[in-house]
């Protein structure tokens, strides 16, 4: 174990992390966000999902540093009288759950399809990649929007809202798998003719073992880079879907539905309902994107830094 840590400390990965201030700062912010999201039920001032805590008389209070602001609502309240800070913490939690879940699903489908296509080749490869190409030719947001619209009509609004988290995870997961499949296929194609794979085949290992134990680990770096960017994309898609009213309901808000519910109040001057969750979302997505950029540069030094 100690050796592993020392190895990690001496690695190029850790070295370039220490040298890059932007990456360090982003990582730091990301850890804070994750911590806040994880501990949201304990640290947030109130539980926004519990109707008993909500008093409609407190609605649309401005942040505490403005006139009429109340100290128990540091960032003000929304149109239903919920504390903005609490809803933002809970919303972040929802966004992260959906984002990570969706990327896991994308990764799973991508790995299965990419490995099969790349390793088996031939007709299987042609069919699977054609499928990926076809889905790739539609923008993934469009696919996600159409899918959630159809789901919403099929399930009815009530049950869609109850099942929103798993459904959104599935929708966003299904809408963007070809990215993973293509990358994994490409790196498998590069790996499969190398000698160690040949050796494994000569020993007589079954195909599945070679694919999972030998080829896959060597394709994982590219998967990691994509996964980071995809988490940012998935969170943005979730926000977009919720903003369109095809995602999380207002009673269990994610950051997107918070922005949606605040949108109409911007005309009456209650900017904080929209702006705070908006900034929250932008910072979160920005740090993930910055980390993703950095990861890409580390693993792919040859890649032109544009």
């Amino acid at each position, binding site marked *: 174990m100690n050796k592993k840590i020392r190895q990690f400390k001496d690695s190029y990965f850790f070295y370039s992390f220490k040298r890059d201030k932007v990456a360090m700062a982003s990582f730091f912010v990301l850890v804070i966000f994750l911590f806040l999201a994880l501990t949201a039920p304990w640290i947030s001032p109130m539980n926004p999902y519990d109707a008993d805590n909500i008093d409609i008389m407190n609605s649309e209070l401005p942040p505490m540093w403005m006139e009429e602001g109340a100290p128990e609502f540091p960032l003000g309240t929304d149109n239903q009288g919920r504390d903005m800070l609490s809803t933002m913490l809970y919303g972040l939690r929802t966004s992260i759950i959906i984002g990570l879940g969706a990327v896991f699903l994308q990764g799973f489908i991508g790995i299965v399809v990419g490995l099969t296509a790349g390793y088996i080749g031939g007709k299987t490869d042609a069919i699977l990649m054609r499928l990926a190409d076809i889905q790739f030719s539609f923008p993934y947001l*469009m696919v996600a929007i159409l899918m959630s619209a159809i789901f919403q009509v099929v399930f009815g609004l009530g049950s869609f809202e109850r099942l929103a988290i798993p459904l959104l995870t599935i929708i966003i997961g299904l809408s963007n798998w070809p990215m993973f499949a293509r990358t994994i296929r490409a790196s498998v194609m590069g790996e499969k003719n190398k000698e160690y794979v040949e050796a494994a085949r000569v020993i007589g290992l079954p195909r599945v073992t070679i694919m999972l134990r030998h080829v896959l680990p060597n394709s994982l770096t590219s998967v990691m880079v994509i996964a980071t960017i995809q988490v940012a994309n998935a969170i943005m898609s979730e926000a977009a879907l919720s903003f369109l009213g095809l995602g999380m309901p207002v009673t269990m808000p994610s950051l997107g539905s918070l922005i949606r519910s605040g949108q109409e109040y911007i005309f009456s001057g209650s900017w904080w309902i929209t702006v705070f969750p908006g900034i929250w979302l932008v910072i979160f997505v920005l740090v993930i994107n910055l980390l993703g950029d950095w990861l890409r540069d580390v693993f792919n030094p040859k890649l032109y830094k544009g």
Partner: protein
Amino acid sequence: MFAFIVRRVLQAVIVMLAISLVGFSIKNQIGDPVRDLVGERVTPAERAQIADEIGLNDPFLVQYVRFVKQALKGDLGRSFLYNKPALEVILKHAPATIELLIGTALIIIVVSLPLGVQSALQPRSMLSRFTMSFSTLGVSMPVFLTAILLIYLFAVHLQILPSYGRGETVDVFGNGYWMSGFFTVDGLKHLILPCFSLSTLMLPLFIRLIRSEMMEVLETEYIKYAWAKGLSPTRVWMVHAFKNTLLPVVTVFGVQIGIMFAYTLLTELVFQWQGMGFMFLEAVQRADISLLIAYLVVVACVFVLVNTVVDIFYGFINPTVRVTETK
């Protein structure tokens, strides 16, 4: 080449059939064509009779074939929300979305070309550093948030631009289809904010793309040769280098317009823009399944068509595409 075109077209047809099958089975399961036709106030006996007359009790495949045949004739069902043929509803809303896209494309071209070229020619200048650092922020900013903030700033706070709707429109052909906002001052004013917020989505991408393509071209041998010949810098940059950065940029542009189409839904919702996206969201809310499926088929059709044309076009320009295809 001929075989390549045939294969591409065949593939397009198969994709369209698959999508229409999905669309039709949804419609078949949960749609209610009788309600679309005559509304809700009909006795069950009459409903059953109408259902029988329009063939709702036929086997699934027979109905699907009928659906495809009618779709080919331009009949995609009837929207009960508008009480009109669904295709007509979509076509009436299309110009608004198309104008939004044209306006956005113009802004992207006008802004990204000079900025991209400038930051390629002088990578160390203040302006290029500014554009580069802002492009990551731009990627992380959701379009709807940009749109809302722009409304707050320009419509609520400064009150110099309208915040929603299309403003005054002109009926271009006099038949009520193409209501254009391009020809009135009011219409143009209403276009500014939606187009601008939509363009912020793609601007970073294009500035970076133009920059990196241009920098790559500037390193090539023939540019060095042009310098050695003693040509003026403007001629080298604009005529020799710039022209060759354009092909990849134009290709990406074609693809990105499609992606932007998805994002028009978001801007249309924020700005209450009566385009296809707004209509679609309304159809979802009111569970107008016929309109929903018609939208699905039309959008899929547009994408498949564009992709096929681009692919075939690409096959002409770049013969290697055809060769790898045959393998």
